[in-house]
């Protein structure tokens, strides 16, 4: 592969991350603003990790800068951790006592359940997982 096409495919990977981040951002806004679900505290923390990616990623795409991975990965990883915590909480693996949200909307409340298993924290977890994986792939490929 010549350097320019390798660069292009790395760019495409970051672009894919951006698409996922935009879709997740708009999706979460749809749940809260259109469908009227109040976001719980953990949802807010995940939003804090997701929304900035929509703006940060393009900054590393024009012109392409492989360091974008270093700026974006901490957010994606943090989001992934919170989503994992949230999923474990909903599934009941994390006991009541260390639940961080007692007031307002309980984080264990399941607001949507598509096909019997797709919940909002699952969607969030999958998005963060994909973004993290794609960023790591981009970094590995571009460091060759």
């Amino acid at each position, binding site marked *: 592969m010549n350097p320019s096409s390798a660069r292009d495919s790395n760019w495409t990977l970051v672009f894919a991350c*951006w698409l996922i981040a935009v879709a997740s951002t*708009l999706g979460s806004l*749809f749940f809260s*603003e259109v469908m009227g679900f*109040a976001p719980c505290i953990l949802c807010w923390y995940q939003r804090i990790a997701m929304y900035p990616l929509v703006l940060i990623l393009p900054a590393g795409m*024009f012109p392409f800068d492989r360091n974008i991975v270093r700026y974006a990965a901490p957010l994606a990883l943090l989001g992934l951790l919170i989503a994992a915590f949230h999923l474990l909480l909903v599934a009941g693996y994390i006991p009541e006592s260390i639940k961080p949200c007692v007031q307002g909307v309980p984080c264990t409340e399941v607001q949507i359940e598509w096909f019997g298993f797709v919940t909002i924290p699952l969607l969030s977890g999958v998005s963060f997982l994909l973004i993290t994986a794609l960023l790591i792939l981009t970094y590995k490929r571009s460091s060759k």
Partner: protein
Amino acid sequence: MKQKHLVIVSGVFLLLAFVAAALLYRSAKSDAAAQAYQRNKLTFVRPHSPTFGSTGAKVEIVEFLDPACETCKEFYPYVKKLMADHPDKIRLVARYAPFHSGSDQVVKILQAAHNQGKFHETLEAVFAAQPGWAPQHRPQPELVWNYIGNVGLDIRRLRQDMSSPEIEKIVEQDIADAKTLNVKATPEFFVNGKPMPSFGYDQLNTLVNDALAAAY
């Protein structure tokens, strides 16, 4: 340059998809509510629900309210004015959606006051004193008693009625109906079964005017 176009086009596409989905969702929700209203009006209006206005009115506003909700308080005079502007044409049905914790106690006071024919007056007193008994969205139902002394209620009977299983059931029924009708915030209005397309005075006004034009 191509890459830039790709990003702009996909960004615009996703945004448009969002807007289209929101519009579709809203109209589907409105249709579903209108159909439910035709099919089973009981979810909207229960025999126990306090109502205002003439029984022959062809436009019916069903309002899910929470006595601790500030926006409900702010909407109250507006709805009253809407009704005054169209006398005998609008009927208001009050339903309870006590989403603040502690609000259910206040709702029970209101329903017990309804038994004495004083729902209206009690609701006004409770709304007027809202900052006093529900500071910072934290209702303290026991403080409400300080503000409803002048309404002319038989307080002993009120306290008895409040703890009766009938009123408990009424509150549970209203909460269940709010859930069935997808009420997630207060105040939620249904005008002849139709919810507001988005929240606001103007939207409610349009909805009421459309219903008036269709009925009269």
